[in-house]
C-alpha cells in the first residue's frame, strides 16, 4: 500500500493550471524526487501534499485516508525549506522541541527525542546556540532535525540545498542520502537539480508545465526517457531523426538493428547519451565544431554527415583533438533509445 498519494490532482490559480491531473504514489519509506524546470508545478505539488494549498480537483491520501481538506497543522508533515526558516527567537534545542511541544509530547520525552536527533545529525554541541549564528550547513541540519522531531508521516524537502556552495552541497548530499536510507522515512524531495535527485531518490517524477511527464527509477528516467522533454531535461541527450522499418533503425548515414522489438514503424526520434557514443573507430565520421574542456573529460560537439548535431564525450587521452578534425564513431544498438511519444 502506498503511504502518501496524489490521485488525479489538479490545482488552478485563477486562470493558470499549476498542476494538471497528476498522480504520484509514494511508497512507505521511499524517497521520491520531483524534478522539473522552475514553474513546472513541482513546488505546488509539494504544497498540496503538505496542505498549504487545497486541490481544485483530485484527492490527497495518507495511508489511504483522504486528507484533502485537513489543514497542514493536523497532517504531521516534516517540512524543510530552502531557507530552512528556523525560528530565530528560539535556541536550536527549542527549535527542535517546538514540534513535539505542539503535539503535546511530555517535556522529558521531547527533550530526549531532540537530543537524540541532534546527536544523529552530529550537531549536539549547537543545542543552545541561536540559529542566526549558524552556518548554512548547520542550519540545514537543524531544519532537518526539527522536521524529523515530530516523527512525520512524510518528510518534505523543498530545494534544501540551493543556497549552499557546490562543495558543501556534495558532502551534504551524501550525508542526507545516507540518513534518509537509514531512517527509512518516506520523503518527497523537490529540486530543479536533476543530478541531486538522481543520486538521492529511489524514484523520480519529472514534471513540466503542470504535467507529470514520467515517473520511474533514476536509471529508467536516464536510460529510457518517455519523451523528448525528459531526455533533454535529465542529463545531455542527442536526439536524432530516424526511420524504423523491419526492426532496422536507419539514420540516413548508417543503419543499426533496433534494440528489441519496436512499436514504432516509420519516422521516429532516438536518443543517444554522449557517453554512449563510442569514439575511435566506426562507420560514421563526425566533424568536430566545438570543444569544452571539463576537467574529467572533454565534451565535444560535431556534425554528422547529414548535418545534424551530435554531442559526444571525449576521453582526456584525446586531448589533442582540435576543431575541424574528423572522428570516427559508432552507436551500439543497446545504447540507443527510441522515444515513442513526441510530447
Amino acid at each position, binding site marked *: 500500500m502506498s503511504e502518501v498519494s496524489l490521485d488525479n490532482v489538479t490545482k488552478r490559480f485563477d486562470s493558470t493550471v499549476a498542476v494538471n491531473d497528476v498522480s504520484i504514489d509514494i511508497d512507505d519509506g521511499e524517497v521520491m524526487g520531483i524534478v522539473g524546470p522552475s514553474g513546472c508545478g513541482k513546488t505546488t505539488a509539494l504544497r498540496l501534499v503538505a496542505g*498549504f*494549498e*487545497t486541490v481544485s480537483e483530485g484527492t490527497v491520501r495518507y495511508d489511504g485516508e483522504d486528507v484533502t*481538506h485537513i*489543514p497542514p497543522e493536523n497532517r504531521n508533515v516534516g517540512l524543510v525549506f530552502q531557507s530552512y526558516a528556523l525560528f530565530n527567537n528560539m535556541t536550536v534545542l527549542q527549535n527542535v522541541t517546538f514540534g513535539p511541544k505542539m503535539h503535546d509530547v511530555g517535556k522529558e520525552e521531547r527533550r530526549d527525542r531532540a537530543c537524540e536527533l541532534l546527536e544523529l545529525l552530529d550537531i549536539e554541541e549547537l543545542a543552545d546556540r541561536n540559529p542566526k549564528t549558524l552556518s548554512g550547513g548547520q542550519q540545514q541540519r537543524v531544519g532537518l532535525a526539527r522536521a524529523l522531531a515530530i516523527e512525520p508521516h512524510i518528510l518534505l524537502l523543498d530545494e534544501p540545498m540551493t543556497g549552499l556552495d557546490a562543495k558543501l552541497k556534495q558532502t551534504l548530499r551524501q550525508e542526507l542520502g545516507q540518513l534518509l536510507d537509514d531512517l527509512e522515512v518516506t520523503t518527497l524531495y523537490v529540486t530543479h537539480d536533476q543530478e541531486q535527485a538522481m543520486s538521492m531518490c529511489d524514484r523520480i517524477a519529472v514534471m513540466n508545465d503542470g504535467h507529470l511527464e514520467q515517473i520511474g527509477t533514476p536509471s529508467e528516467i536516464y536510460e529510457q526517457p518517455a519523451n523528448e522533454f525528459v531526455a533533454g531535461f535529465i542529463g545531455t541527450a542527442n536526439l536524432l531523426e530516424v526511420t524504423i522499418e523491419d526492426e532496422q533503425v536507419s539514420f540516413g548515414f548508417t543503419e543499426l538493428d533496433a534494440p528489441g522489438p519496436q512499436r514504432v514503424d516509420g519516422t521516429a526520434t532516438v536518443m543517444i547519451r554522449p557517453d554512449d557514443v563510442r569514439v575511435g573507430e566506426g562507420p560514421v565520421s563526425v566533424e568536430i565544431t566545438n570543444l569544452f574542456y571539463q576537467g574529467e573529460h572533454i565534451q565535444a560537439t560535431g556534425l554528422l554527415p547529414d548535418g545534424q548535431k551530435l554531442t559526444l564525450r571525449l576521453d582526456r587521452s584525446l586531448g589533442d583533438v582540435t576543431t575541424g578534425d574528423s572522428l570516427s564513431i559508432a552507436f551500439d544498438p543497446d545504447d540507443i533509445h527510441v522515444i515513442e511519444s513526441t510530447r
Partner: protein
Amino acid sequence: MATDHVSISTRVSSAARTTVEVLTSPSSERQREIRRIVSLCLPFTVLLLFSGVFPLTEMVRISFSESRLVTEGFTTEFYMTLVTDPYYRNVAFNTLWFAAATTVASIGVAVPVAHALEKYSLPAKSVILTVLSFPNSLPGIVAAFMIIILFGNTGVFTNAVAFISGQSSTDIAFSTGVLGLFFAYIYSMIPRALLLLRGTYAEVNTDAEEAARSLGATPLQTFRFVTLPQIKPGLIGACILVFRTGLAIFGTVLILKGLLVWTLQIDRELAQGFNIAQASAMATVWFVFVFGFTVLVLRYTTAEVSI
C-alpha cells in the same frame, strides 16, 4: 423587472451566506487564509471606523446643519460662506501658495542633501543623520520656538545682525513675519522630505550612473538624465506628502502667526464664539481636498508613497 430584482437579491444573499460560511467553517486552505486576513485587518478597521470614519462623518454632517450645536436640517450656508466671502478665499489662497512654496524649497534643499548622504563619504555620518532626522520628532510648536531662537526679537541671528549693522533688533527680527513662518515650515518639512528621498536614493542603480560618467557625461548631465528619472516616482511621492504636511501645519503658525492659513482660521472659528459648524465645514473642505488630490496623484502617477 421584478424577477430581475429577486434574482439579484437571492444572488446577494447567497453570496453573503458563502462569505459567512468561508469565515465560520472554511474547508480549503485559501478560505482559511481569507479568514486569517479578515481577522488580522479587523482590529485596525474597528479603530479606523470608531476614531476616524465615524467622527469625520459627524463632522461633515454638522457642517451642513442648520442648528448650531446639533445636527438638524440641511444647509450649505457654511460652504457658501467659504466660496463667496473674499476673506476665506484669501485664507485659502494663502494656504495653498505658502504650502507650495515651502514644499518646493524643502524638496530643493532635500535633494542635494540626500545626494550628499548617498554619494559622498562624509565624516561622522551617523551624527549627521541624527541631526537631520531629529526634527521629525518635534511638534510644530517647537519648530516655531527654534525660529524665535534664531530670528526673534532676542534671537541669535537678529542680534548678530543688529550688532554689526547698528540697527535696532526689533527692526531686524522677522520671526513673526511671513519669512519667519517660511523658515519654521521648512524646519519641519526638510527632515520629512529627506526621510522620503533617502529611501528613494538608496534604490538608485549606481551602475547606470557610473556607466553614464564613463561615457563622458558630466555630473550634472548624469543627474539630469540618469539619476533624476530613477528618483522621479519617489520625488513626486515626496512632494505630495510634504505638501500635505505643509497644509496640516497648525502649532507652528499658532505661535508665529505670520500668515493667516486655513488651519489657523479653523482654530479662530472655535476661539471666537465656538462656531463648530463653520470650523467643520473648513475641516471638511481641507479633508476632501487633500484626500482627493492624494488619490488622484496615486492613480495617475507612478508616485511611491510611504510615510
